[in-house]
């Protein structure tokens, strides 16, 4: 259960894991898959205390808001999938220079995150941030700009190839671009003097190339919707979406550019996802149901490196100290950036390089320090709850017992024997571990637990989900 909650969400406090376990695995999957059954996220509080989170022009406003939402949401899969699409359809605010627009794109992803892939692609193609990001506002009849058309095929839907074969030709890229001519932006108000305004999508028939096109072997006077219809029917698209979901939720895979020549590590799970893609008529929720209930998923514990967002949000939720708006939440979002995942600012249109590429020496130090500062703090409510939970089980612990219990409550972490022995030795050096009865004794026990948690979050295994 802890594994499911780490992957389909951002992890959970052991008390919550226990409650979910009582509910049952499949029931929990269904609950996660239907965020609409949970109460809507109440953002009026954060907007009251931090008004510019709704109307601001600075990027920290939006990064802070999204971090707040990820930490506080009772719909974790909704945010996780929003983050997923932000990675797949990577758009950076730095080029847009219009931050509310970048945020509107995230809102669009959130709205459709578990929906139909065709719908998502149509929304994406009309999304003003994406249009500007990939220059489709310069894609006109007679003067095509192939940027969006190319990335739509290469990075958003099919990938360059699979099973050793290319998925499309250079001609297909050009014809795809022609189909999206005239999908542009209405002229917008300038930022000054009253702040940013949202761009609006505008279809300009006078800029659209209405001529006949040949795309992926089909012929017609295709417009953008027609091209999307053809794309979603491709086997390569099913493979592409499946591999992305697998890489994000199950286990680290090689980067997208190598998918043409590198087959999936778990062919059975990918095949099941591809079949569900077609059976469900491209429905993401259905694919995720298959994924979370698959053997491949269940046995893939700790098979992927946590992204910075997963780490930061997971730690914050576990520390349980941020359950309502507080000042300076943008600093927590910044921490995520220091670890290599600056929200709203993926490094390229390929998104972030995931897996072990998340970790370099600088990022690792940031990760350990962040987690240690939160979970090594005996004043954090989540840490106190963990200590209370242990105190309810026994009056004293051997160092081995305390280490094993703390590893378990942090999510069944399994360090190597040598690292576990180091943790045990560290506890042993601190003397006997007694829970005690007085307030001072209980406080001392809580501090011992916090000190151990600080050490555990520094073991490499904590970096894996």
């Amino acid at each position: 259960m802890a594994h499911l909650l780490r992957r389909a969400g951002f992890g959970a406090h052991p008390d919550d894991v226990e409650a979910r376990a009582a509910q049952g695995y499949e029931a929990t999957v269904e609950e996660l898959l239907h965020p609409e059954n949970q109460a809507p996220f109440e953002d009026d509080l954060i907007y009251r205390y931090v008004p510019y989170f709704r109307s601001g022009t600075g990027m920290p406003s939006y990064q802070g808001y999204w971090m707040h939402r990820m930490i506080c949401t009772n719909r974790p899969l909704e945010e996780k999938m929003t983050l997923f699409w932000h990675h797949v359809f990577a758009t950076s605010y730095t080029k847009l220079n219009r931050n509310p627009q970048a945020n509107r794109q995230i809102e669009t992803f959130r709205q459709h995150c578990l929906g139909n892939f065709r719908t998502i692609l149509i929304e994406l193609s009309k999304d003003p941030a994406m249009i500007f990001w990939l220059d489709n506002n310069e894609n006109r009849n007679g003067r095509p700009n192939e940027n969006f058309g190319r990335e739509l095929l290469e990075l958003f839907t099919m990938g360059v190839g699979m099973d050793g074969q290319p998925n499309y030709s250079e001609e297909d890229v050009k014809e795809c671009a022609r189909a999206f001519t005239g999908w542009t932006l209405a002229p917008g108000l300038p930022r000054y003097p009253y702040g940013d305004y949202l761009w609006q999508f505008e279809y300009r028939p006078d800029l659209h190339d209405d001529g006949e096109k040949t795309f992926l072997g089909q012929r017609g006077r295709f417009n953008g919707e027609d091209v999307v219809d053809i794309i979603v029917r491709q086997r390569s698209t099913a493979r592409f979406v499946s591999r992305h979901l697998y890489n994000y939720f199950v286990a680290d895979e090689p980067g997208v550019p190598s998918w043409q020549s590198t087959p999936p590590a778990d062919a059975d799970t990918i095949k099941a996802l591809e079949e569900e893609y077609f059976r469900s008529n491209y429905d993401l929720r259905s694919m995720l149901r298959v994924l979370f209930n698959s053997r491949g998923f269940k046995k893939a514990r700790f098979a992927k490196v946590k992204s910075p967002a997963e780490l930061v949000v997971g730690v914050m939720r576990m520390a349980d100290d941020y359950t309502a708006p507080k000042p300076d939440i943008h600093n927590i979002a910044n921490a995520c950036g220091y670890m290599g995942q600056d929200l709203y600012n993926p490094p390229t249109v390929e998104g972030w390089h995931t897996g072990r590429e998340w970790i370099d020496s600088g990022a690792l130090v940031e990760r350990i320090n962040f987690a240690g500062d939160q979970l090594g703090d005996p004043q954090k409510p989540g840490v106190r709850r963990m200590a209370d939970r242990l105190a309810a089980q026994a009056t004293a612990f051997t160092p081995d017992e305390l280490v094993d219990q703390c590893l378990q409550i942090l999510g069944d972490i399994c360090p190597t024997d040598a690292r576990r022995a180091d943790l045990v030795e560290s506890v042993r050096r601190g003397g006997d571990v007694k829970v005690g009865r007085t307030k001072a004794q209980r406080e001392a026990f809580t501090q011992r637990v916090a000190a151990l948690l600080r050490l555990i979050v520094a073991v490499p295994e904590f970096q894996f989900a």
Partner: protein
Amino acid sequence: MTTAVAAPTFSYYKVIGNQSGPPRPGFTAPIDVALGPGGLLYVLSSYYEYDNKAKFVVKCNLEEDYLGAFGAKGTEDEEFTWPNSLAVDRAGNVYITDEWLNRVTIFSPDGKFLGKWGTLGAKNGEWNRPAGIIFDADNNLLVADSLNHRIQILTPDGQYLAKFGKFGAEPGQLNMPWGIAVDRQGNIYVADWRNDRIQKFSPEGRFLLAVGHTGQGDGEFRRPADVGVDADGYIYATDWRNDRVQVFDPQGRFVTKFLGDCPGYSKWAVDRMASNPENMKEQRELVKDFTQERIFFQPTGLVVDDQNRILVADTGRHRLQVYQKHG
């Protein structure tokens, strides 16, 4: 025999401000406005948390003369974290609530720090997230004690006098009250924020009237942030999440709504745009629809002056939009 009274009419008066901050004239996410002596206006910006150079209060007037700014980000005496509302006493001193620091901070008319008071708690005279603040005719302060779901009445130096309200949705109960207004008879109007309504109380805190409920139709609210009342008892409320201002007659019947009517540049905006007129002109010439520029975006604080002008802090557009009541 009844005498027919002509319904009032309203016109747009002017726009003040632009997105900027001291030392340049402008506001950054203004959330409240208060009237000072001699036509002075004090406008409270919520600013950006990540901007350490913020000056939170701009002093100006309706003629859009910029007269200075004060207040900084932080937790020291003269600083703010989550400033919410402001009020001005007869001497022109400015009282500002801060929902995070749980205190009122007092400044002289020129922005000199004079003092602060307030303690987190639920006892008389303590509070939890003080929000709306206003002086009554006796020069006492009414403060919306938002997370204690009550209104407290205090002396200007913070001595407890009285309170009313408790958590709930029944008539007279409150859920995170925000803005407050007082009419000429001393009746108290409260923006009952999370109950999506305006409530009217007698000077002693007895429930008199509830206006509105949750929704987007006329007379309905989504989180009303502030309330004002004019000399004739007409009630004005910023309908925060519906991005509009609603007007009610003294009996609480819906009269009209303002959606925002900014006609273009304010005086400060003209000055600012003068630095790059050609570029701005070119961009604006391409625009077909100026609706987004005209309308309110997250209107928050509101005050009615003695000439029946309704000043609205248009938070998301960094300006005040001002309406005039006639008749």
